[in-house]
């Protein structure tokens, strides 16, 4: 029956059901490609500019609280145990500050970085669109391009902001703008300022303490196995579940497409059987004369429907694959 069904399908292809199934399969494939790519890019951006492969916080530290009371006092000692597995470790101090401008006060997010060590973990240097990257402990800042535009700042201009130190005393920081960033990360470009670590530590009274250490591993997949005493080590795979919505969204869309696909198949199959009974009545009568049994008829129709679905899936995969390969998405 399979060979008869195959011959029937090849010589009398049912283009409409095949194409319907193919379109849904191709759409599902492309949506999956698109969302996976988006997810991968977002995660990569997070790893490259903010998180690294593993983020280390002090024990009981709340990253959303921006507190300076709970610090890692000796970054080198913390990463010592995993030193051989590292490409680099970047200590950072992340704090909130208030920037005064002509248009009023503006809250900003300040990242205090050790430019040389940060370079081993993050890719900020590549994203300096105008000006140059930070070097040493000069009193200079890197500024998100959008933030600079909003403040009307350009390279060489002065920038001042106020931040509360560890001892509760406010400190006024003054820097000159050395570079403007264009990372593609909305939050960094619109509200982040990067300053030299030593300057921030000194101004905020942190000594050598940092609020976080980001590490880049030689093998990113080993992130899950990094475990350090007395600190929180969060692998990139578990970065606050902030991309869970994307995965959930992708799953929801794919489930919806699967339901549509099943409906197309179901309606197609019912339609196929109905039409076959009308349009192929003479052919079926002939099959009956030839001694075809009821179960043979069922098998013949089932094979024809199965092969039609298979053809639709293969065509859909082909279309989806071609669109993906040629980057038409």
């Amino acid at each position: 029956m399979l060979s008869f069904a195959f011959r029937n399908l090849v010589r009398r292809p049912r283009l409409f059901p095949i194409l319907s199934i193919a379109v849904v399969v191709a759409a599902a494939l492309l949506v999956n490609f698109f969302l996976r790519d988006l997810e991968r890019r977002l995660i990569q951006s997070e790893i490259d500019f903010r998180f690294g492969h593993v983020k280390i916080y002090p024990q009981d530290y709340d990253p959303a609280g921006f507190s300076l009371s709970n610090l890692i006092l000796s970054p080198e000692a913390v990463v010592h145990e995993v030193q051989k597995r590292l490409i680099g470790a970047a200590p950072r101090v992340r704090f909130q500050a208030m920037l005064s401008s002509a248009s009023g006060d503006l809250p900003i997010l300040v990242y205090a970085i050790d430019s040389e060590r940060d370079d081993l973990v993050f890719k900020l240097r590549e994203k300096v669109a105008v000006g140059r990257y930070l070097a040493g402990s000069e009193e200079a800042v890197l500024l998100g391009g959008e933030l600079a535009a909003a403040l009307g700042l350009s390279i060489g201009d002065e920038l001042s902001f106020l931040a509360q130190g560890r001892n509760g005393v406010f400190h006024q920081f003054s820097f000159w703008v050395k570079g403007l960033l264009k990372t593609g990360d909305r939050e960094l470009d619109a509200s982040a300022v990067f300053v030299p670590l030593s300057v921030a530590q000194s101004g905020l009274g942190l000594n050598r303490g940092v609020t976080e250490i980001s590490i880049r591993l030689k093998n990113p997949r080993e992130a899950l196995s990094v475990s350090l005493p007395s600190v929180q080590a969060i692998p990139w795979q578990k970065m606050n579940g902030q991309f869970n919505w994307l995965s959930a969204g992708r799953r929801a869309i794919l489930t919806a497409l699967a339901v549509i696909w099943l409906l197309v198949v179901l309606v197609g199959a019912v339609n196929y059987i109905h039409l076959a009974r009308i349009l192929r009545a003479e052919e079926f009568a002939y099959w009956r004369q030839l001694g075809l049994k009821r179960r043979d008829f069922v098998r013949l129709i089932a094979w024809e429907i199965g092969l039609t679905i298979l053809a639709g899936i293969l065509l859909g995969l082909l279309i989806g694959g071609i669109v993906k390969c040629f980057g038409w998405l």
Partner: protein
Amino acid sequence: MLVLLDNVTKSYAGIPAVKNVNLAIEAGEMVLLYGPSGAGKTTLLKLIGCLEKPDEGKIYLESQNVSRLRAELLAEVRRREIGFLTAETEMIPVFTVQENVELPLQLLKQGKGGERRERVKQLLAELDLEKVAGKRIGALTPLERAKTALAAALIKSPSIILADEPTARLALASGLELIRTMAEINQKKKTTFLVASDDPAFSRYLTRTVKIYGGVIEGEPRPAGLTLARNEEVPIYDLKAEQNA
């Protein structure tokens, strides 16, 4: 006796199509079942061809009572023993002549591909259909199509070929040619034919004419010798036994 009908009656929605029909056909006969449209010819052929079951009476094929067999077994009887040829026979439109004629052998799983094709080739040559072997049914002339249907009926060497108005869609000359071809095959291969037609002109090519009017066959006595039939309760086509074998 190849075919034996004993007091067979068949009704549709309470209206009798054939009534108390008795008929005996010997192997090698070529019988014309003559009657006007609506006389019950097609119903009778469907009964003998195991496409329908009688309401009353018994039908014997090769001394076996087939009138009460299950649908699966009737299909098996059709597959092995009956060849059909009708004016409406379109066969499988997407298959070529060669494939259509080979199909009954494939369903019977007779021989390997090469052997089957060789057998089909020989038969097509006998019927002058070699040149159209690769064509699909839709590309044939009505006579070629009718001959292809005849070839498909003949290929499995059935006990009987039931031809229902085989010339109805043919021009007179083509119809005569088809009947002559059937008569030649009957002479040469002793194939049994039962040809239903409302055209008495064909009777000179056939060995016997049976007339049917209003579902009743005239002048055919209730066949004697029914007691010679084998045990009616044991069907010849026992699928289970066949599968076990």
